[in-house]
């Protein structure tokens, strides 16, 4: 069982590696957006530092959303999603493998770039590790919820904008807990409560989302 799960991940990672130039694009977008904020708001360090947790996290939400659109597209076009569905292994497990692979490809690089982004926005140093942990705990939730939306809209024209409409409201709790944790850390306050909520959210999403994703894919396949 674990074998199949890992095979799915390995296959998707390999496919992504073959087109590694594409992988850099979301990261570049992320960094460019980070430089737009000071230009659009103010270069004042104190002011930016107050906004930084929210800015980083809203950008993360949008980056996650944009990357979700492509998670099942290829598989729908070449029919490999039906192959997965027809295989004797539990469909939700295979689908979870795809989400994990997608998270490794898209969110993992974010973990590398996020400290840089925090620095650009003058975030206090003690908040950066907490920001890093919120990204680590939060982005898998974004991927799991986003995958449900992507699965629902994969088969339809105009699904891209619809995906944002469906998924962003569901991202609200992640945004709140994550940016509260970072703000609290910046003020030197305890963050265990917020991080525990993110962890609980991740467990809940891991338990429930695979079934929702597989049910959604079945509907989209018709």
């Amino acid at each position: 069982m674990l074998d199949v799960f890992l095979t799915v991940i390995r296959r998707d990672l390999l496919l992504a590696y073959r087109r590694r130039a594409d992988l850099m694009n979301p990261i570049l977008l992320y960094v460019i957006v980070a430089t737009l904020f000071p230009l659009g708001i103010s270069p004042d360090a104190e002011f930016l530092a107050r906004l930084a947790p929210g800015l980083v996290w809203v950008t993360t939400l949008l980056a996650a959303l944009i990357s979700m659109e492509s998670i099942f597209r290829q598989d729908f076009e070449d029919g490999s999603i039906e192959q997965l569905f027809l295989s004797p292994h539990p469909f939700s497990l295979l689908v979870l493998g795809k989400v994990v692979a997608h998270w490794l490809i898209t969110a993992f690089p974010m973990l590398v770039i996020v400290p840089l982004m925090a620095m650009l926005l003058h975030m206090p140093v003690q908040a950066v590790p907490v920001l890093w942990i919120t990204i680590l705990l939060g982005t898998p939730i974004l991927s799991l919820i986003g995958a449900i939306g992507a699965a629902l809209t994969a088969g339809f024209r105009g699904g891209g904008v619809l995906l944002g409409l469906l998924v962003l409201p569901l991202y609200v709790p992640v945004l709140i807990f994550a940016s509260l944790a970072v703000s609290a850390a910046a003020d030197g306050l305890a963050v265990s409560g917020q991080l525990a909520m993110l962890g609980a959210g991740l467990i809940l999403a891991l338990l429930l989302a695979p079934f929702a994703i597989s049910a959604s894919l079945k509907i989209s396949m018709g």
Partner: protein
Amino acid sequence: MWKFLHRLSSLKYFYEWSGKWVPWLLGLTAVLMLVGLYWGLLVAPADYQQGESYRIIYVHVPSAWMSMFVYVVMAGAGFVAIVWRTKLSEIVVSECAIIGATFTALALVTGMLWGKPTWGTYWQWDARMTSELILLFLYFGIIAVHSVIEEPRTAARVASILAIIGVINIPIIHYSVTWWSSLHQPNMQLISKTPSVHPSMLYPLLVMATAFQFYFVSLLLIRMRNAILYRERITNWVKNSLARD
């Protein structure tokens, strides 16, 4: 009971059965609404803190209650639609979305109109208003599904999944928003939005809430009948029943 439910799930039978109920339900809605309005506007005393403007409660709170109730109904019907694939529950999911969105929008607009004289501003990032706004976005998503996906049965099943996910998420969203606003607004206005409700104010509120419930059931049945008529427009029973009229 099961036999009745089974027969009811046939669209033709449901259409005929619901036709008998709609006029009565509408009548009851009108009566309850008039009683509630009279009681709330003329009989109930003014609030000792807010004066007359508290009377907005009689349209605001029922709308807010209905906005959540309709979502739960929609998710329940969505569950039935996914598990048993009955057409009727799919229609319920599709028709609930727009009604629920209307109630949510009403709750927001009346909340804003209440906010101005109470808080001094139309919009406050207050926990309840904020979660209501997010609820509206959830409804918009489900409505958008129906406009993007043309095949009505597929659209209804997609909407069903979304409604179920939404119903799991709404408490989490509400909790997170409450926590967020409690951290950001330690000096919220002294006047809480629900005054400790005295029975003389509570009873008209309950009458209005019941009126809104009946309105919802009436409009849902009417809209479902339209949807059935449209989906079954090429079948014989629809054509025959038209020929009879």
